[in-house]
């Protein structure tokens, strides 16, 4: 019952924070949005990387699929992003299924490499087909401030949009953890051959985890496009962003709220460093890296577990 209590506190906190920040520190509201954005990406990554143990450094490719799908549907066919986001999710799911059929057989560093290669391919293709994607110049969404177009002049809208997506990602994680699929995914992470020997169709469950993770990531991609109203191949399908997503979940841990804690912590940290030393670009990432090394060596199962056990 303690677990239920914790879930309720987290959910309440996540719902109240945007409103509180909007009233108290409106000038820093974008920090809350970024925290939720990274928390959601980490939570989506956790399904494949944390629960199943297939480390992907390629999730930003699905962010790009989501962002480009809803944006192109809107620009070329006047389809509302409210619809486009689900189309993007479906497209990302199909893409991940096709990729997963080949690459999910790989283990450890080889899967990591294949995911790196995949992001590169998506980025190169988005940049190459300029007649559709406008290449590296990127796509600009028109400013309409209309809720029907998933836009608003009020930043609270975006705060609650990403809060909704974040809670969806956490709920999916929760549902998986309480299901047969969840048991099988952790068995695959712990020892894939032993899971097979018990009759678990490991290829199918890994693909399921990959598809779910890709689908959720694509939804966040649509949010990204609507929030910034500007997307480029290098800002979406990027290796640094992919790595950042993985780091959030590794620093946080693989428990339900751990990637959320990871996202909030790391974005908070980056914000602090940028505010304190605005003149040194790159410092926030260097600090990030040191933090990551410290967590891996001192508390390999993540900050969330460390906090629960020690504080």
């Amino acid at each position: 019952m303690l677990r239920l209590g914790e879930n309720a506190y987290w959910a309440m906190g996540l719902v109240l924070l945007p409103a509180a920040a909007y009233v108290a520190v409106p000038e820093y509201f974008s920090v809350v949005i970024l925290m939720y954005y990274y928390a959601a990406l980490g939570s989506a990554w956790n399904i494949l990387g944390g629960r199943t143990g297939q480390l992907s450094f390629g999730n930003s490719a699905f962010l790009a699929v989501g962002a480009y799908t809803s944006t192109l549907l809107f620009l070329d066919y006047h389809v509302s992003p409210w619809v486009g986001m689900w189309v993007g999710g479906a497209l990302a799911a199909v893409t991940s299924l096709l990729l997963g059929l080949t690459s999910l057989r790989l283990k450890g560093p080889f899967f990591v490499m294949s995911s790196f290669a995949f992001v590169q391919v998506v980025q190169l293709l988005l940049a190459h087909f300029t007649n559709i994607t406008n290449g590296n110049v990127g796509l600009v969404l028109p400013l309409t401030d209309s809720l029907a177009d998933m836009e608003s002049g009020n930043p609270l809208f975006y705060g609650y949009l990403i809060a909704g997506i974040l809670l969806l990602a956490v709920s999916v994680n929760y549902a998986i953890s309480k299901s047969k699929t969840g048991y099988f995914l952790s068995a695959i992470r712990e020892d894939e051959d032993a899971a097979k020997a018990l009759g678990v169709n490991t290829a199918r469950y890994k693909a399921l985890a990959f598809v779910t993770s890709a689908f959720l990531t694509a939804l966040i991609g649509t949010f990204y496009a609507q929030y910034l109203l500007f997307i480029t191949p290098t800002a979406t399908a990027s290796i640094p962003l992919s790595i950042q997503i993985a780091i959030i979940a590794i620093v946080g841990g693989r428990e339900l709220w751990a990637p959320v804690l990871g996202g909030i912590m790391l974005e908070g940290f980056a914000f602090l460093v940028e505010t304190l030393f605005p003149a040194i670009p790159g410092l926030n990432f260097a600090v990030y890296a040191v933090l990551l090394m410290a967590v891996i060596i001192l508390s390999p199962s993540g900050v969330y577990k460390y906090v629960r056990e020690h504080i």
Partner: protein
Amino acid sequence: MLQVKGITKKFGGVAALNSVSFDVGKGEVFAIIGPNGSGKTTLFNVVAGFHKPDGGSISFEGKDITGWQPFRVAQAGIARSFQNTRPFPDLTTLDNVVVGALTRHRNIREARSKAEEVMATVGLGGAAGMQAKNLSIQDRKRLEVAKAIATSPRLLLLDEPMAGLTGEEIPDFVSLIKRLNESGMTILLIEHVLYAITKVADRLMVMDNGNKLAEGAPGDIMNDSRVLKAYIGEDDA
């Protein structure tokens, strides 16, 4: 129940199994013995689908399962244990067994009660909440069997379940195997502990160097000169 016909398996040109055939009847305890490197574990891996054979066929309850993937073999009703025990280290002992039970039960609650029942059968009831990586060797051996029988197999493959056990642990394990067999499970067993084999095995097959050397009742086999030679050869080494 299980028919293995002319199984051959080569690794880089070297035959690890050379046209090995045997049958296991329903309700039997069938044991395989032989020196290290004689091909016993390779044979298990072929039957369980972890290695594809280069020749020969395997059928189970009349179905041809040659070359099936491991998970399909398991779903067909054959469960295996690993010689070097393969628990899911970060999961609790109970959850390790629940994973096995879930391959037969849709519902988590049902799987959990099945798992608890299995844990009691193998004598692991007290260690349910412990992480599998912290178990003693004896309990890891028990867990290895518990995971396998949680999948409600009709044929159970046990790869040296008693290796590393000492003294009174062995009779305990022997009686566990007897109980499983009496509950209706057919058992195929690789074992080095000869005392255990003479106690539980209905029939015995001896392997050496990838070949089947002999097959028969334990009493007859133990007096076979070729078997003695294979074993004495090992003891010298």
